[in-house]
């Protein structure tokens, strides 16, 4: 009889501790390490996780920290109280409490959507900017099936809709959030989380923000796993390139975009695309430039350099070589044009104009890198079929 | 020689789709070369409208106006300008223009299409300046001229057009007494020496009566009465229309 009581007690103990553990999501949130991204970091405190967003100072955006707190914890405490209690640095950066895991999210940028799919977070999606801006058919089906509302963005942000969707959290791009979205939302006391992936200057750094999204939605570990396997593929490719190419191997010279209205805007030498090109074994014509965002050049300066290019990447709004020459007949003189080495990143585009390169690309840099390697040094990846890129004809 | 013949005209304004407002009806009148016709009448009776209608600045609602043998509405603006020139009441807003330029513009209907002046044009301009006694004003700009000096220049311009008739709408309105007299005397001289006809409307009754060959009196209903300054019945008619007691005026 005593034995049975002991068994029963054990079961009750085990059962109730499971109950206790699962009620209110008491599973401990684990902090993740951030290796590549410079725009955010993760700290752990007893009972909460601190997600710090610190955009590069030169860009002029403010830092902000999010305290990820489980729903049942620290009820009724204000951010300042939390700050004191956990001696969170009293710098100018704001501290905001976000109750995690987020169960309803309104991502305003299409870049934030594919991670939701990969991390099985479909249910969390409760609002989007515009369905037409989305490339992924799967996402669009989900949105249409569940009649997920469209809330617009920027000046056309539908505040009423967002208020109706409360208590959803809005995830906005930090570059966009500052002056025409965030203040409006803040005024209406709607929680906003700013995602700074766009400001990252390295492909892996940008992709690492999947951990940011994962942590907010309670799938931190899954996000880390996803990222790690992707990063492994990326670094694997990177290392292969480094190994295979010697000092003497010719690296193709690369030019990007085209002149418009007398200006030729190219990505900066310290930026995202420049890094890709270098990692793929290419020679970006403006690699010595020190801008991390775009470089605005006079058309003739761009042309002078472009003449040296072997490969020409990225043509916004152009789908054929003929269109390119109609846009500016002088471009026919470029070597890359004449040898038909004009490659656009619009292989995956819908009729409405949404380009997957900008949707799933940022968090899948390994695919972009593979494409670029196969373009720059085809012998290194024989049999690779281009995913995001295609040759213009 | 008859230079202008108005045959049973109706003057007034058209208001787009709302129809017309008639001011004078069945008005007939003529002007002969070399004469000064004074146009008088109370404010608002339609003097300006008549003057504008006769000069072609406005179209008549009915009837025809003939300049010589041709009807005014069948003339091109250039042809009309060669026959009629005008002097209006308001000061011209062209401050930086020189008087010489303004009078030269009077050659518009005669000069080359580029606006350039031939020797003959320049001669006419010079003659116009001396006819009004404004030679000293020639190279001054408009904003340097007094009202009286400016009106002299405008008359010179009207002369430079070499018209058959000069029509003047209250040209002395803003001038002081001396200038008024000066200008009116000028008109009389011009008609005498150039043979141009002058039609001038004015509120300066006494002056007008002094210089006019004939007088047109318009009453409040827009009817035109014609007479001469010597005719005493006509003079009392004028006084009646204006409701002036006899002892107030010298005519």
């Amino acid at each position: 009889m005593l034995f049975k009581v002991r068994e029963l007690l054990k079961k009750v103990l085990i059962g109730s501790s499971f109950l206790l553990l699962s009620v209110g999501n008491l599973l401990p949130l684990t902090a993740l390490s951030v290796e590549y991204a410079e725009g955010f970091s993760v700290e752990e405190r007893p009972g909460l996780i601190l997600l710090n967003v610190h955009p590069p100072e030169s860009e002029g955006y403010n830092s902000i920290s999010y305290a990820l707190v489980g729903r049942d914890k620290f009820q009724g405490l204000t951010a300042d109280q939390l700050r004191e209690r956990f001696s969170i640095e009293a710098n100018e950066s704001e501290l905001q409490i976000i109750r995690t895991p987020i169960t309803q999210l309104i991502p305003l940028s299409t870049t934030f959507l594919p991670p939701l799919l990969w991390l099985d977070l479909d249910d969390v999606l409760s609002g989007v900017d515009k369905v037409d801006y989305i490339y992924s058919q799967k996402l669009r089906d989900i949105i249409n099936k569940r009649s997920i509302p469209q809330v617009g963005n920027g000046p056309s942000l539908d505040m009423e809709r967002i208020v109706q969707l409360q208590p959803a959290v809005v995830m906005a791009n930090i570059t966009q959030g500052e002056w025409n979205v965030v203040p409006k939302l803040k005024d209406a006391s709607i929680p906003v989380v700013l995602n700074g992936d766009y400001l990252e200057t390295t492909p892996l750094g940008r992709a690492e923000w999947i951990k940011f999204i994962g942590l907010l939605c309670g799938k931190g570990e899954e996000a880390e796993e996803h990222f790690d396997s992707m990063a492994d593929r990326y670094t694997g490719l990177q290392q292969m390139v480094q190994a295979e190419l010697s000092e003497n191997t010719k690296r193709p010279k690369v030019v990007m975009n085209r002149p418009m209205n007398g200006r030729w805007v190219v990505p900066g030498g310290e930026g995202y695309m420049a890094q890709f090109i270098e990692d793929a074994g290419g020679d970006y014509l403006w690699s010595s430039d020190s801008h991390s965002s775009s470089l605005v050049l006079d058309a003739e300066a761009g042309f002078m350099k472009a003449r040296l290019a072997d490969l020409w990447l990225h043509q916004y709004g152009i789908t054929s070589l003929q269109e390119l020459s109609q846009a500016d007949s002088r471009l026919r003189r470029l070597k890359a044009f004449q040898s038909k080495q004009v490659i656009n990143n619009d292989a995956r585009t819908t009729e409405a104009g949404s380009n997957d390169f900008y949707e799933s690309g940022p968090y899948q840099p390994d695919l972009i890198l593979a494409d670029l390697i196969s373009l720059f040094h085809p012998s290194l990846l024989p049999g690779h079929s281009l995913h995001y890129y295609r040759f213009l004809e | 020689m008859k230079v202008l013949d108005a045959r049973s005209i109706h003057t007034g304004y058209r208001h787009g789709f709302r129809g017309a407002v008639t001011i004078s009806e069945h008005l007939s009148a003529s002007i002969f070369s070399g004469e000064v016709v004074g146009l008088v009448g109370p404010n608002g009776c339609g003097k300006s409208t008549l003057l504008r209608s006769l000069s072609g600045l406005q179209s008549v609602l009915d009837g025809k106006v003939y300049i010589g043998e041709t009807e005014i509405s069948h003339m091109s603006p250039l042809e009309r300008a060669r026959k009629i020139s005008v002097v209006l009441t308001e000061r011209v807003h062209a401050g930086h223009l020189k008087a010489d330029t303004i009078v030269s513009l009077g050659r518009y209907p005669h000069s080359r299409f580029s606006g350039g002046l031939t020797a003959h044009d320049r001669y006419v301009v010079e003659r116009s300046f001396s006819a009004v006694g404004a030679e000293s004003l020639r190279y001054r700009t408009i904003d340097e001229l007094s009202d009286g000096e400016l009106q002299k220049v405008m008359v010179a311009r009207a002369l430079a057009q070499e018209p058959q008739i000069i029509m003047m709408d209250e040209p002395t309105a803003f001038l002081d007494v001396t200038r008024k007299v000066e200008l009116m005397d000028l008109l009389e001289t011009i008609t005498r020496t150039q043979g141009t006809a002058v039609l001038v409307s004015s509120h300066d009754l006494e002056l007008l009566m002094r210089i006019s060959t004939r007088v047109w009196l318009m009453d409040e209903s827009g009817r035109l009465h014609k007479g001469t300054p010597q005719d005493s019945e006509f003079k009392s008619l004028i006084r009646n229309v204006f409701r002036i007691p006899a002892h107030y005026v010298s005519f």
Partner: protein
Amino acid sequence: MKQGLQKHSKTGIILRFLLILGAAFFLFALDVFKGSVDIPLERVLGILFSPADWLSETSGLGLEQTGQRDIILLFRLPRAVTALLAGMGLALSGLFMQTLFRNPLAGPSVLGINAGANLGVALVVLVLGGAAGGFVAALPFGMKALVTGAAVVGAGAVLGVVLLVSRFIGSVTLLLLVGLMFGYLANSLVTLLIHFSAAGRVQAYLQWTFGSFGATTWKDIYIMMPVIGAAILLGILLIKPLNALLLGEEYARSMGVALIRVRMTVIMVGALLAGVVTAFCGPVTFVGVAVPHLARGIFRTADHRTLVPASLLLGGATALTADIVSHLPGQGGILPLNSVTALLGVPVVVWVLIRSRTGRSFV
């Protein structure tokens, strides 16, 4: 003594013209010689004056040299020519608008023509652009031609309405108001389009609004030059009636000016110039309003026989100056044209206006 005075001012005028002509030549040369890519002077001269040596494909020129040749002949020269033409066209258009409306603030954009062009371009860039890949590919000409064409059609549409209205509205001031209203309407439609468009396309449209003389190729100039040339010739024919108009519409009519016809021709010439420049260079502000005042200030006259050539020359010089300055920043960077035109022009115009002891009117 009067004769002496007259002669003196005549030499004064000729002297000033020569100076401005010289300045225009100098600025044109400077615009071609100086650019963001450094090309030594001798080379530039060589390319310009013995193009035969440089153009032949088999002349054995190195990569750098062919690059320099292409820059000079395909980028710099067209840019300088475009600036010259645009400056001339805008200045003349501004002069005409100021005389027609007797308003010193008037300019090429006063009739809403520019706004119409804006609307046309916005429609193409924001609505058709990008998404209409298939649509555009099906056309025999490309996006750029479409944008240019849309600007012309937009400007023309507004012009058509304004001309129609001007036949029936007597007062020129009312016409000005109608034009302004159309401008507001077109601009608000553009804002609406922006509101509904994706960021990428708005960016592209925004770039267009900065204005630029460098967006044209020789093919474009082959269209620009005859159109602007024809408009200028027509404008010269208008000198005489415009002078008459200085005295006011009534006096002008009494002197023989066919008012309605002249008015419509002035509007057409002004709008044609504004429309064609906007179509190829985007909306270039300030030049059209400021240059006529500059001309009036330098020559102290309202006579269009002086003002028309003066505005043409000064307009070209001003545009060239703005172009040169906008290409000053080193390492290939450039400044938006419209900022430069205003930044440079405003102090100059203010100085001219203050000096010219303006009386009751600006004429």
